[in-house]
């Protein structure tokens, strides 16, 4: 009886096209934000930050980025890991070359650089489609990882071949480096995640979002009604890569602190993000967060159950995790191709009618 739209009237088109047309949804959203910004930073500890919340936020950003490309514009990419690496190495080079400039600006610039690289690898999308393109994006994945591995300039000729985030502060708080506190890590990622989600929402509800979806649903028809496929696809690649680049930058500088490219940004990273998008829901902002949460929590949960409770060795647990994730992907594609987001919508639909479903 609580979740209702009755009496929630719209008197202008502007009101009708807002993000949360239902008052209750809006309140829920504000409440979530309030908890995220005001409550969690006070109670967060290192375990929760490192095991759950920070990776969740970072992966959410990456999933948002891939969702824009795959879920909205319909271009499947298997190069997400490689593009995250671009963001990471760009941040590393920028922050070590210009230590006086705020790391936040470096992270945004890294996103911009990734956007350019993404557009470059997006060019073939004009000629090739579907899984041809998916395989072509593997070229980006393998080439970029190789590049950062083999060209010492990218890792400042360090002997280990690793990159290590320099210590940087924002408003006097450490946000990168070993002295960073859990709340600081969390808040930096939260600000980026919320800001980028807002941007993603704006883009997808307006002109460019419709162009992307038109290309996704029927590219020939889209072109005939006036969508330039070149610009539509390239903006999708650019925007998506920007998000992914920022995610890569945060993943390296805030979350990991040090990274080796093959380890941190290998092909499995690409798949992981793709899976988040599929499980969360293709073409859904909320779904990107839901999918990221799901695949961040699942291993933590499995580890607690299999290793913690049953006492199984970790490698066995890891292999079981592979099986479960793989099976889940198949199950989701069969049962609910629109993922958790659609399940959530259906639940709300039921709730709206509850307790009088007829």
């Amino acid at each position, binding site marked *: 009886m609580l979740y209702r739209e009755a009496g929630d009237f719209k008197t202008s088109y502007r009101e*009708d*096209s807002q993000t949360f047309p239902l008052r209750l949804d809006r309140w829920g959203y504000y409440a979530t934000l309030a908890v995220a910004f005001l409550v969690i930073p006070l109670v967060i500890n290192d375990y929760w930050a490192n095991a759950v919340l920070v990776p969740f936020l970072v992966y959410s950003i990456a999933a948002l980025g891939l969702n824009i490309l795959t879920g909205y514009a319909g271009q499947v990419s298997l190069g997400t890991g490689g593009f995250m690496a671009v963001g990471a190495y760009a941040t590393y080079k920028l922050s070590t070359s210009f230590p006086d400039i705020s790391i936040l600006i470096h992270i945004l610039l890294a996103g911009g650089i990734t956007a350019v690289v993404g557009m470059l690898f997006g060019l073939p999308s004009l000629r090739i489609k579907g899984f041809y393109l998916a395989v072509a994006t593997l070229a980006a994945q393998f080439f970029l990882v190789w590049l950062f591995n083999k060209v010492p300039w990218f890792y400042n000729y360090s002997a280990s071949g690793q990159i290590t985030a320099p210590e940087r502060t924002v408003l006097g708080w450490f946000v990168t480096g070993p002295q960073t506190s859990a709340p600081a890590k969390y808040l930096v990622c939260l600000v980026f995640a919320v800001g980028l989600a807002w941007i993603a929402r704006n883009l997808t509800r307006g*002109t460019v979002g419709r*162009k992307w979806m038109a290309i*996704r649903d029927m590219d020939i028809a889209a072109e005939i*009604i006036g969508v330039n496929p070149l610009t539509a696809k390239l903006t999708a690649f650019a925007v998506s890569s920007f998000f992914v680049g920022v995610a890569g930058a945060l993943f390296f500088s805030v979350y990991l602190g040090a990274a080796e490219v093959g380890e941190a940004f290998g092909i499995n990273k690409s798949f992981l993000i793709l899976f988040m998008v599929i499980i969360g829901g293709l073409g859904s902002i909320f779904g990107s967060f839901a999918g990221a949460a799901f695949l961040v929590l699942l291993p933590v949960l499995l580890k607690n159950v299999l290793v913690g409770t049953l006492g199984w060795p970790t490698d066995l647990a890891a292999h079981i995790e592979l099986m479960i994730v793989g099976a889940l992907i198949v199950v989701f594609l069969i049962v609910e191709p629109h993922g958790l987001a659609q399940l959530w919508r259906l639940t709300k639909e039921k709730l709206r009618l509850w307790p009088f479903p007829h």
Partner: protein
Amino acid sequence: MTPTTSTAPALTDPAATDSAVQPHVTADGRQIGGVLMDMRNITLRFGGVVAIKDISFDIREGEIRAIIGPNGAGKSSMMNVMSGFYVPQEGEVWFRGQRRPQMKPYEVARLGIARTFQNIALFDGMSVLDNIMTGRLTMMKSSLLEQALWWGRAEREETWHREKVEKIIDFLEIQNIRKTPVGRLPYGLKKRVELARALAAEPKLLMLDEPMAGMNVEEKEDMSRFILDVNDEFGTTIALIEHDMGVVMDLSDRVVVMDYGRKIGDGTPDQIRSNQQVIDAYLGVAHD
């Protein structure tokens, strides 16, 4: 409302050249202006197959122009040439008094040519409202940054175009399905949404590829009424391909008849009815 478009006196001569046909007013009071689109000696080949052979015809401002012919006559290919999707090997397309250079389909759309498709080409993953809004994409001017921040022109544009689109939604009587995903709609409604999307572009020339294919009698009547209303109220020039002879004769001002890629007739419905070649090739064979 019975569509009885009159036969204009100026059009009685089937061999009349374009310049001989003067702008005039039809018996039901619609303005027919000068030549809007002029197809000159169009030839289209796929490999060795000739889909269209040396066809010329024109479309005048304000009229409803039909292209008919049996299956495989090349009607849809002709429409694809008109919308720039196929590039003919020979011939010229003139639009609004200028020769149209070779263009990408999306550039053609920006000239003010919108169309519907024989096999509905809607965007299934989007709502009815979003589908119709895509019709106005060519008019959207806000930059990516403005859209990202939902600021300035981005928001104003959205509201402004939404108002325009709502008028079309009212006009086509599809208010109650505006938020429904298109994929869930029945066939007849999909056709109507597709018409709405094309109309949203406020085209100079509206092309309808078999707008009534697969519809029942009631839906056909609705669609005929909408087509006539669009032509009447907005003065939109309409080119349509149709199979249903009855509908074509009732709706259109002038008819082009194609058979095996050639033009075998061109004129008012009455002239077409009495054209022996047309009767042989089309009516006599395919009419049921």
